[in-house]
């Protein structure tokens, strides 16, 4: 009745490859749900304070550089596309090609960091700190947590790259690439929500003093 009966006892390869693939994907989806909840709490706080300090929030949102924000959105979307190409290559067992797309993804992630660093340093040089106003407190918190996720993603994708170097993936085994790809898309999706929430709500350039 069970295929397990033919498996040697005492080993940790206790899952069929098929079963392992589906388990890993399910686990990642559940984990992504927890990520949405994590950000959801911050979004609730943002919604609450925006409602309470409506004018302040619109004013400060206008001080953010929406052009840089939009550019970063484009950069992340492109990196997601590069990731998709990487997953596709892995599924075909093309390790070298997969590795190249992963490197493209990583480079784009660093471009995102560079643009974010310009934004942060401009704000800080104008004396805008997390303690300046709740809007800025939440801005630095939410974009900071998001940036942390990008950093973790870079580490994971680099690890995948090392695996492609060892020719680890094949048409029957590409689970890590696909699962980390899911994670990378979520990080992208969260930015897609953060960008309009922080930069665009309240009208572009409404309070552009800086």
């Amino acid at each position, binding site marked *: *009745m*069970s295929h397990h009966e033919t498996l040697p006892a*005492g080993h940790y390869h*206790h*899952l069929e490859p098929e079963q392992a693939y589906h388990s890993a994907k*399910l686990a990642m989806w559940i984990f992504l749900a*927890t*990520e949405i909840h994590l950000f959801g709490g911050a979004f609730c*706080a943002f919604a609450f304070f925006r409602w309470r300090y409506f004018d302040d929030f619109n004013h400060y949102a206008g001080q953010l550089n929406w052009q840089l924000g939009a550019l970063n959105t484009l950069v992340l979307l492109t990196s997601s596309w590069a990731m998709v190409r990487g997953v596709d290559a892995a599924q075909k067992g093309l390790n070298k090609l997969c590795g190249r797309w992963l490197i493209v993804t990583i480079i784009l992630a660093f471009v995102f960091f560079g643009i974010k660093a310009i934004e942060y340093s401009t704000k800080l040089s104008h004396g805008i700190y*997390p303690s300046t106003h709740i809007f800025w407190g939440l801005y630095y918190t939410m974009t900071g947590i998001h940036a942390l996720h990008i950093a973790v993603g870079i580490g994971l994708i680099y690890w995948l790259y090392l695996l492609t170097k060892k020719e680890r993936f094949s048409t029957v085994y590409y689970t890590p690439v696909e699962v980390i790809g899911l994670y990378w898309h979520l990080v992208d999706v969260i930015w897609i929500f953060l960008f309009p929430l922080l930069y665009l709500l309240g009208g572009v350039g409404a309070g552009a003093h800086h």
Partner: protein
Amino acid sequence: MSNDTNHHTDKHSGDVNYLNFEKGFMSWWMSIDHKRIGLMYLVSMIFFFAIGGLLALVVRTELMKRGQTIIDNDTYNMAFTLHGVIMIFLFIVPGVPATLGNFLLPLMIGAKDVAFPRLNRLSYWVYVFGSFFAFLAIYFKLDTGWTFYSPYSLRNAPAVMSATMAAFVLGFASILTGVNFLVTIHKMRAPGLTWDRLPLFVWATYATALLQVIATPIIGITLLLLFLENAFGIGVFRPDVGGDPVLFQHLFWFYSHPVVYIMILPAMGIVSEIIPVFSRKPIFGYKAIVWASVGIAAISFLVWGHHMFVSGMSDFVRYLFSFLTFFVAVPTAVKVFNWVATIYKGSVEFTSPMLYAMAFVFLFMIAGTTGIHLATLATDAHYHDTYFVVAHFHYTIQGGAVIGLYAGLHFWFPKIFGRMYNEKFAKIAFCLLFIGFNGTFLPQFVLGMMGMPRRYADYSTFSNVDTFEYLHFISTCFSYINALGYSLVLVNLGYGAVKGVKATANPYNSLGLEWQTPSPPPHDNFETIPVVTDWSYGYGEEYSDHDHNGNKKVVAKPA
């Protein structure tokens, strides 16, 4: 439950098993065997339970007499805070899932391990890592209470930052366990183990894992915001710059109410396993218990406001939270009726696990009915922040979750260690524990009704100080008996684990799958993956040609 591993039962007892197949500290620390990880969790948690318990005794001793008894006010604040933080975050939140859940889940579903054994080990490592931050909080003199309410929690940044970091990291351990268990239950059940045959402990673990993954991230972001508030002053919870402490309470309780069910649901699962075995009857209302577990998990997300009836909310919202809180009583009562109906006319055997299980039902009923007092708006205005809440909470968590854990520890002890504890000694310890517990907390209901506030180091300026002192004195005396009971349990179980009489594979003649493999189980649990043909509660149903759903049995017992 029929399966094809019965004939191995006794052959391997005492031979190579998960406890002795590898030796040395590193073989445990690096192990990815779910049974070893569960046991390591258990030992760590009992250690923290002992520390938390000693702190409770310090608190109780200080309250024994009016005025200063043994410690000054600031030390008292630290003592009750650390009691709460350690008991909640290091002991009862990981609680049953991390210990018995880890040990039993794969055994009960006929798997060789959880879906992600390395993730499981990581969860334990993260737990140990998180506990260091808790010690750091002690070093910085944390005294906010376990709830970290703002603005109290904005006064001692190093302590609060360490404590929130501890809770955040420990939350990660909890999420990893939850994800792992959900996937394990979905993907790794043995052939024939359909959802309607799943043991109730597994169902309870499933509902708990759902809560772990849905609720824990919310406390994660809440504590992260509090951390950043202390580090950079982001303003969100700081009232003097326009932030809102009540928002902290909302976010905090959105997690911290469901977490009560993270503590209690697995204990209910344990009780559902023990009662049929020692009543020798099938569990009554299997499906009702399953739906009650899932229902409790669902409703638990809609009731957090009952912690904030006097914090400032609109009347309409308070009515809503009050009503929804009453509503949780329905699935809970369904379970109690089912347990009682299972015992009814059974041939009940009063073994120590059964005594603990019955104590759970009794104590949890007191916890539940006093919960109704607190869910009622008018009475809560009086009871809020009094000893009534303290007593209610301890009936729920100690009378419920801890007694449930101890029920399970006694029940599965022979499976875990392959040995037996001393049954007579276990019963004596249980009696002390039961009497001590009730003697400690029943007077606290009265104290609360008379207006004794919680978290006060002293009550000598109250007008009814004489009655307060009298009741506090009784409570403290019984708390020593309670502590003696717990110590005896630990001595008995500790001695039994090393020197106890060898246990057979299935000492209770239970139908559960975990009993159909040697005690202690071999490293991979089952020599061959079992094939399941019926549920595991068919006591007295062996000779029926219908299964528990009323369908004619198709598969005969394998030879």
